[in-house]
């Protein structure tokens, strides 16, 4: 990513303010970047120029009248393809929704547009957000812009690649077990999920409803804060969205980090971690210490059970949520002589390998005779993992870990072994299960030049503190440590 390529929300605003560029010209510029780079990266699945230019013209007209600033006026953004966009094809990276055009906007999309954002299009992702490499998309993998031949992470791989390569200023992703944070780490950009309930899920096509969250991927922590500010808050259309007030993140994050107690859980630095990732994250932690944070060693004894727990709960919820794709109301229909045969053929051909695998696993875990041994047990272990966190947060204010055990792996490397792919989420599923907020921030690069990510987790609704640490880390040069 060259410096000339990089726009931030702040630099867009400044350029519009001095009339160096119009919102329409900026949208034009981004569409020409996409035209140049997307054939190679495959980050976008659909573009929405009609909608983008209409919005850009509206922003230009408002500015001509000297209207007050909108926080995202004219900012070109991309939306992960599992998030509904009215009139713009939304496939979830699946053949089963190849021609699906939602009749309404997700609340997060509506809020972005109300804040002035220009929606460029929809980004590639693992099918129904199931994957850690973006290779499970029915429309082909995304290439990591920082490392050709390697995955961008997943499932929000298209959003991460688009932002990291300057094809969008910011993007929305979704995180169920690490799908925002891990691609952020792989592509070297900040990427955040708020607490469960912080951002409305209305219009997010569901994978696992007790885990799914929408959040931003950006190039700076300030942009992360601005994006989160816009999309967070209670929504009457999502009964699980929280009524807790949304603080002014951009102001809160500027507070000094001196005296903040940081937990370093031993279980996140064990076997299986790449030595270069370890070295970089330890250097990152050392930097936070030099900034005045206090380090506290932690034990989180149930960490090792998180992947097993996650892959029962997430697949059980997915098997239920994805039952709606049956060829009746939307998407693909493969004809059959009977209704049942039509369901089976439609789903058999419409879903890809990983989605079918997870539906099978979830159905098995919920089936008669196995419910207690798998699903109920997993829900109990989930409580133990959440308890590890609530106990830890009595002693510390935030927890710092690596985001992923390795940097971006090679395309194809883990495709034959689903379990190895699942283990890429080993440090991110815990925060997902506990429902707490987390950010991945860039933390230097390996000798080969592959980005490393450091994860900061906080208690429920402590987004301000998570951002505060990330912002201080960025300001002290942590991103290129």
């Amino acid at each position, binding site marked *: 990513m060259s410096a000339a390529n990089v726009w931030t929300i702040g630099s867009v605003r400044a350029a519009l303010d001095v009339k160096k560029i119009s919102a329409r010209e900026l949208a034009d510029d981004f569409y020409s970047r996409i035209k140049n780079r997307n054939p190679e990266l495959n980050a976008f699945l659909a573009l929405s120029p009609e909608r983008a230019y209409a919005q850009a013209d509206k922003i230009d007209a408002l500015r001509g009248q000297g209207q007050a600033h909108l926080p995202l006026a004219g900012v070109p953004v991309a939306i992960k393809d599992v998030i509904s966009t009215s009139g713009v094809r939304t496939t979830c990276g699946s053949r089963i929704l190849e021609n699906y055009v939602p009749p309404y906007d997700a609340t997060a999309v509506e809020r972005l547009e109300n804040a002035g954002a220009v929606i460029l299009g929809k980004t590639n992702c693992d099918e129904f957000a199931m994957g850690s490499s973006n290779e499970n998309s029915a429309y082909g993998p995304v290439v990591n812009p920082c490392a050709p031949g390697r995955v961008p992470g997943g499932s929000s791989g298209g959003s991460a690649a688009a932002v990291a390569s300057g094809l969008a200023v910011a993007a929305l992703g979704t995180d169920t077990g690490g799908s925002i944070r891990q691609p952020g780490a792989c592509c070297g950009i900040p990427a955040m999920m708020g607490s469960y309930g912080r951002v409305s899920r209305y219009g997010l096509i569901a994978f696992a409803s007790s885990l799914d969250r929408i959040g931003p991927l950006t190039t700076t922590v300030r942009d992360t804060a601005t994006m989160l500010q816009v999309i967070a808050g209670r929504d009457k259309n999502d009964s699980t969205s929280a009524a807790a007030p949304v603080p002014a993140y951009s102001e809160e994050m500027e507070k000094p980090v001196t005296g903040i107690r940081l937990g370093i859980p031993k279980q996140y630095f064990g076997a299986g971690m790449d030595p270069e990732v370890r070295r970089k994250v330890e250097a990152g932690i050392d930097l936070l210490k030099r900034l005045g944070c206090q380090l506290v060693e932690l034990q989180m004894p149930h960490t090792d059970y998180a992947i097993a727990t996650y892959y029962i709960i997430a697949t059980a919820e997915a098997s239920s949520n994805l039952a709606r794709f049956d060829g009746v109301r939307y998407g693909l229909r493969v004809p059959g002589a009977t209704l049942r045969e039509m369901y089976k053929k439609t789903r058999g051909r419409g879903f890809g390998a990983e989605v079918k695998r997870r539906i099978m696993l979830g159905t098995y875990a919920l089936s008669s005779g196995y419910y207690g041994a798998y699903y109920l047990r997993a829900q109990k272990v989930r409580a*133990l993992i959440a308890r590890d966190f609530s106990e830890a947060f009595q002693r510390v204010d935030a927890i710092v870990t690596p985001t992923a055990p390795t940097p971006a792996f090679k395309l194809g490397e883990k495709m034959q072994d689903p379990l190895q792919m699942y283990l890429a989420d080993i440090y991110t599923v815990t925060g997902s299960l506990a429902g707490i907020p987390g950010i991945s921030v860039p933390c230097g690069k390996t000798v080969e030049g592959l980005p490393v990510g450091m994860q900061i987790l906080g208690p429920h609704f402590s987004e301000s503190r998570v951002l505060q640490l990330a912002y201080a880390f960025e300001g002290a040069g942590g991103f290129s440590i």
Partner: protein
Amino acid sequence: MKITREDVLYVAELAHLELTEAEVDLYRNQLDSILTYIEKLKELDVENVEPMAQVLFDASAPSGNAPPLAGDLNPALRDDVLRPCTVGEAILSGAPDASKNYFRVPKVIDR
């Protein structure tokens, strides 16, 4: 191997998935190795642990019905009032086989 071919076919039937022969073999092997990994959950004593079904409730409290974590984070239910639905036509126009106000499917009732 814990998972039999019959298990795979049974689960596929429950999930309404038509599988090819190759898929049956593949999923049998893969589900077997994933479920073997998941067996590790049996190492833990969860006898007196309440299952966590709600994120915004305190998991460390003795009962799963404990009060919300902090303040009024648990949103109130909305009033049960009618609201107009304006997307009916758009929804039907995206359906694979719609007729007037209906989705058409293969015949399910014999008369």
